[in-house]
């Protein structure tokens, strides 16, 4: 198995990817995401944890893009966390994520989320 997908549902749905996300393994992620979308309803935030991901090619990018196309129209956001340098490189070249979509660490994401929380709360006031 060159791709392992672990779904955590604590807080935001987090997809933990380890191994390789390429043409060969991308269909598996697609299948897993389809399942997730089917069962989760509206997702406000989808997190992909990439710390264990060693390789990413355009097929994997497509997975993320498809995920974005599903989540963002509903107001949700997709976040990619802990990309390894080769993965980061590929993400950057194809501009897979909008600015602020890639977080180099979980702490950064938490901080951002706290920030957003505050903004929302202050925005509602």
């Amino acid at each position, binding site marked *: 198995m060159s791709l392992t997908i672990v779904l955590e549902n604590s807080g935001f749905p987090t997809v933990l990817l380890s191994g390789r996300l390429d*043409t060969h393994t991308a269909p598996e992620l697609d299948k897993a995401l389809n399942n997730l979308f089917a069962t989760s309803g509206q997702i406000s935030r989808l997190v992909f944890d990439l710390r264990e991901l060693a390789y990413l*090619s*355009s097929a994997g990018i497509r997975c993320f893009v498809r995920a974005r*196309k599903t989540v963002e129209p509903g107001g949700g956001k997709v976040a990619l966390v802990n990309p390894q340098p080769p993965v980061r490189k590929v993400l950057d070249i194809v*501009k897979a994520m909008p600015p602020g979509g890639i977080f180099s660490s979980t702490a950064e994401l938490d901080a951002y989320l706290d920030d957003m929380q505050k903004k929302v709360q202050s925005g509602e006031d």
Partner: protein
Amino acid sequence: MVTNEAPRAGAFRTLRARLLFWILVVAVPIYAGAIYLSYHATAGRLESDAISEADQLAARMAMSMDSVIRPIESGILTVAFQLEEVGPPRTEYMKRIRGILAAWPDIYGSTIAVEAPDAATGAFAPYLFRGRDGDIGYSDLAKESYNYRDLPWYRVAAERLQPVWSAPYFDAGGGETWMITYSVPFFRKSAQGKRELAGVVTADLDLGWVRRNAAAYPMESISMGWLYPALPEADFVAAVGDSADRMRQFDAQFDPASVRRVGEDMLRRDVTFAALPPAVSSKAGYLAIRNLSTTGWHLALVIPREQLLAEARQLLNRQIVLGVAGLLLLVMAVSLVAAGVTRPIRALAAAVGSADDDNLDIRLPERPGLDEVGVLTGALRRLRDSLQRHIQMRAGTLAAQARMDHELEVSAQIQQSMLPHGQSLRALPATVEVAVALQPARQVGGDLYDFFPLHDGKVLFAVGDVSDKGVPAALFMARLSALMRVLGASDHGPARLLQEINSRLAEGNNACMFVTVGCGLLDPHTGRFSYASAGHDAPILRRMEGGVSVMDTENGPAIGIEDTVTFEQREGVLAPGDTIILFTDGVTEAEAADGSLLGLDRLLALVDAAPEGAPQLLIGRIVEQVSSHAAGFQATDDMTAMAIRFLPAGVVPYSGPEGARWRIDVTPSSAGVAQAQSRLRGILHARGISDEKQHDVELVAEEWLTNVVRAGGSHPAGDVSVELTLQRDARIALTFRDFGPAFNPLAADAPDLDAPIDDRPIGGLGIHLVREVTDDCEYARVDDCNVLRVRFKGEPLHVADHRS
């Protein structure tokens, strides 16, 4: 080694002959010398005895002649005396004369002649003589015509007034024959009382009587003799005995006259016996000369030397005959003695001489005796028995040795069969090529190699070197081999495997043997390997495109020394076409006659110089190098070399001027693409390319190939390939080929990456990545083939170096 020998033909080869020969060689000269000396002494003695005897014989002869004549003299003297004493008248004279003739028959004639004043007065000389017919004849000497007083026979005596013998004369008018006369003067008293001459009495001996007398003389041992008057002018010689005949026999030229001269000369010198001068006689002889005291005649005796020595010679001949007879007796005696003495030796030689390589059961004489031969016999007997025992023992030892050799051969065969060979090679995956050579120094050795596939398809390979050689090493090696097979079947990596093997071998390792092992595990699909070493020489890595290096490994201790030990494991990758070479120090420490070792450098150079990395080729070269280096020098260590080449299907390695190239066939499916990626990763990793570069290459390959596969529909196998080139300028190039329909994804527009997510196209990202990641890329359609060439930025390749 006793061989069948008899004394060679030839008289002097036997002991007996030599004994005989040398004894005689010594004895005969002594004997002959003695005889010779004896002869000389005897001959000398005999000669001088003969000489003195001859001398004395001459004297005796003279004396005996004298003894015939002396009575005549004394008779006449008596008559003379009587005439003087008695003074008979003249008439009595006749009677007296008759009496003389009667008394001495030898006298021829006699007279009493009276001294007269003159011839006319008073001459009176009656003479009586023996006639031929025996009667007495008378003659009157007082005749006028016969003046007897003047005749020598009267005058000399009358003058000398002494008896005297006359010289020979012819008495004409008297006896009418040659004679000699003994004249004795007689006297009378004169009137005055003075003694005066009265006359002369004579006795005549005719020379014929003298001759007859001499001739009748027995010669005895005298050869020749002559009697002659002292006066040389009286030419008369009477031969003694049969000297006349003998003279002729003695010397044809012999002349009695010269003998006479010599004799007289001798007498003058008062010599009675001397050798005849050569002038007188050509044959050696002696002359004895004697004076007859009566008549004063000379008796000359000639004795030829030969005769003189005849007796001596006889004696000598007798001596020689006796001597030779004695010598023959000596020879016989010595021969018998030699035979007797050498009999035991000959018997011994005969008995022993019959022995040869096959038949040592010689018969020795039973009763050897107490002398040296007996000692020899006894010693030979002991030697024979000891030799027979020794031969039996040796036969036993040889039999044991033969059994041992046989067992060693069988052990060698067993050991050979323990090592994987032909069949095992076939059991290996096709992607792994193995060649191996093992040469034990003795029949069985302590080197070991092994390779076998595990259940998961990985290939375990190992080379080991036990600390000893020969049977102990082989036994230890057998244990190791078994352990390796059994434990290797479990999923241990090389390091763990060595650890396990060590803990089992180290316990109860009383012989304190140890073994160095290099052990590895090769994935025959990817070329990845892991390796661990227990004190063993690090393997050599040969790159497909050339270039050798020594694998850097952490070496643990040799197995068998410490009870628990851990080993470092090293991971690596072989690119397709790369070869890994394991060896034991029997290769690098192969010793030439001059003591120089082969050495790691030479081995590296050899592997580097090979035109390609085929294991058979490399192993063949290594074996050849070792044997030519040792050049017949006795191998002191076992030698092992193993080469393993990784050559997966679907990859063609090629080394060309532009660099190292691998052409990878791609199965047109996503799995195939993934496999191609994996292959590329392996090659780049094997060549030490950075992870980042590896990732770029892999990405480009995936993106393009995925496109090709997607666009091309169905591709027959072999249609799609990607070629990786590690250029000499340190740049990496990829060349994609496919025989599908013309398709150039590069021609498509770049995707709009900034479009909002809804508008973002799914596709096109791959090509974008390709363009972004590579340095340059170009597409061409060549002969129904889509060809995409891309190049990456340069990066110094991991340069192959030799471990110093």
